[in-house]
């Protein structure tokens, strides 16, 4: 016992031990750490039908479903929540104040739908106040939404490769550094890229241009992006059925494995089997496939956005 104490007294004079002690003592309390982590890596709770799971930075969320199944609409409603500030001029809007990057591979987005939904959300929040419509707020929000469209996989890859530079530039302008990257129609060029794979390369050194290499590169680029920036990825993908009818397992999986395993969350949306309508609107069903939750939500798209069916 005496030896041990002596030994401890001796080594405690060594600088490394002091460092180790300092490390053990810690420099923040759990409460401080939680506050810091939640600020740097916030958990985001998205609107219906994605409301079951809070998402964090580095999550890759995939929304799959037949066409049409309100996939782009879900992205747009999430976008509205993201670009709205938490509060503005003392009014609570409950948004995140994050920037949204919309990579449109389907090339079908009509910006009018976003502006319409955003205006509606602002007007609803201002419902009780006497303020006229706040144009400055609208402008501020719309500026947080960035958009580009790609007509083929090479444009998609070039856009991905340029994202790091773009985010760095933006990082200097905005303090709040969380970005939500939306990719609408990740499988849009499936057929074109598959067509490429039969082209002879004439050189054993040369990489074959095909679906596989396109997604190898895309996933690689996204992984690098996630390491350097606070990014959350939301992607939509159109799927088709092989068998008649819809259930969790009946859609045709056509994406390369490298993409499939990159995705951290997957939700399936589709029109209801009984083709029910509410207020003359088509109703949809949302089911979580990854993680496999045993719950499903029914929703419909109205003028104001997505509403849950009880």
């Amino acid at each position, binding site marked *: 016992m005496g030896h041990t104490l002596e030994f401890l007294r001796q080594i405690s004079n060594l600088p490394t031990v002091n460092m180790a002690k300092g490390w053990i003592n810690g420099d923040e309390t759990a409460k401080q750490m939680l506050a810091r982590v939640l600020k740097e890596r916030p958990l985001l709770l998205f609107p219906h039908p994605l409301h079951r799971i809070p998402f964090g930075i580095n999550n890759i969320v995939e929304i799959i479903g*037949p*066409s*049409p199944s309100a996939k*782009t609409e879900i992205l747009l409603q999430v976008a509205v929540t993201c*670009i709205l500030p938490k509060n503005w001029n003392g009014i609570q809007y409950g948004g995140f104040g994050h920037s949204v*990057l919309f990579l449109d591979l*389907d*090339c*079908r*987005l*009509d*910006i*009018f*739908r*976003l*502006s*319409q939904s955003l205006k509606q959300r602002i007007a609803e929040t201002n419902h009780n106040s006497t303020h006229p419509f706040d144009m400055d707020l609208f*402008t501020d*929000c*719309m*500026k947080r*939404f*960035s*958009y*580009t*469209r*790609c*007509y*083929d996989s*090479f*444009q*998609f*890859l*070039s856009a991905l*490769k*340029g994202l790091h*530079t773009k985010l760095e530039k933006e990082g200097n302008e905005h303090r709040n550094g969380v970005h939500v990257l939306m990719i609408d129609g990740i499988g*849009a*060029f499936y*057929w*074109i890229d*598959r*067509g490429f794979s*039969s082209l002879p390369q004439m*050189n054993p*050194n*040369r*990489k074959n*241009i095909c679906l596989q*290499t*396109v997604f190898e*590169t895309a996933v*690689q680029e996204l992984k690098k992006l996630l390491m350097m920036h606070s990014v959350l990825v939301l992607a939509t993908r*159109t799927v*088709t059925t092989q068998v008649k009818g819809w259930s969790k397992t009946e859609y045709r999986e056509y994406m390369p494995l490298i993409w499939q395993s990159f995705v951290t969350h997957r939700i399936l949306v589709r029109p209801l089997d009984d083709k029910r*309508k509410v207020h*003359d*609107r*088509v109703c949809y069903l949302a089911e979580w496939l990854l993680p496999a939750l045993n719950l499903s939500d029914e929703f419909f*798209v109205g003028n104001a956005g997505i509403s849950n069916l009880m």
Partner: protein
Amino acid sequence: MGALKSLAEDYAIIDTAFLQFCASRGIFSVEDFLIHDMYTLMASTEKLSNSDRLKQGINQLLLITETYHQPWMNGLVLLEDREQNKHYLPTGSESFDVLLQGGLREGHVTELVGPSSSGKTQVCFQIASNVALKKGNVVFFDSGNSFSPTRIKQMVTHISGLKENKANEALQQAMRNIECHAVFDMYALLDVLHQLKLNLKSQIGYEIRLIIIDSISSLIAPILGGSNAQGHALMVSVGYLLKELADRHNIAVVVTNHMVGGEGGNLKPALGESWKNIPHVRLQLSCNHATNNYAVCILRHPYMASGKSANFMIP
């Protein structure tokens, strides 16, 4: 895009040594470059004597590829472009226009689906006549020899509301505004579309307001089928080409898709699941032959509820 060699002329840094370095890694074209990881490529220059120069070359190539995608735009700029450049084109039928809040949208690809004799071609004629008379140039792709100048003349005269002898000048202008291409296969269609794209880019003052393809399904359906991916690849390519033309040059595009017998005798569009994703707007036409009344129903729209419908007559 294309061969790296072709860039050597414009960029001094892309020299023989750089091309050799790229070739040794199997990179001959910009496309090859895009499917490589930059960091790995940068790292592989380290052991070489001209490493710095090669890195500069890679950076230059990166800068070049940056221009290959459309520039990023913020929501406000996008909304402004839409409000200033993308208008509604009236179809010539009032209830049709009311349903669509003003007509067909420039920048959109609108698809008309319907069984045979549901009025697809007649609606195409009417939209073409109305736009040619009031707005400007129309390019009409006719795949079934159904384009009828006599019918167009009749419709233009009817829309203008003038007596036939007085309508002459307006009629001639409207007829001149319609350019008709008879196309009987996919390759002919792609050929003319690429030519149009080139003309729109290079000829200043050349404008098109409307492109009609009647019918696109009869051009695409024959090349689909089997395990062959080429047909689908061509289908998606033509879809994206149309979307690009529509957005870049503010053109409204209308394509028709006929219907065929599906399971259980139900009719379904000839172009199915993989095509569904292409058009912005999908409208279904039907016709009550007894009363000569037509109906149009919205099946998909970027910002309008599906399921709404309207009745209309064709003069």
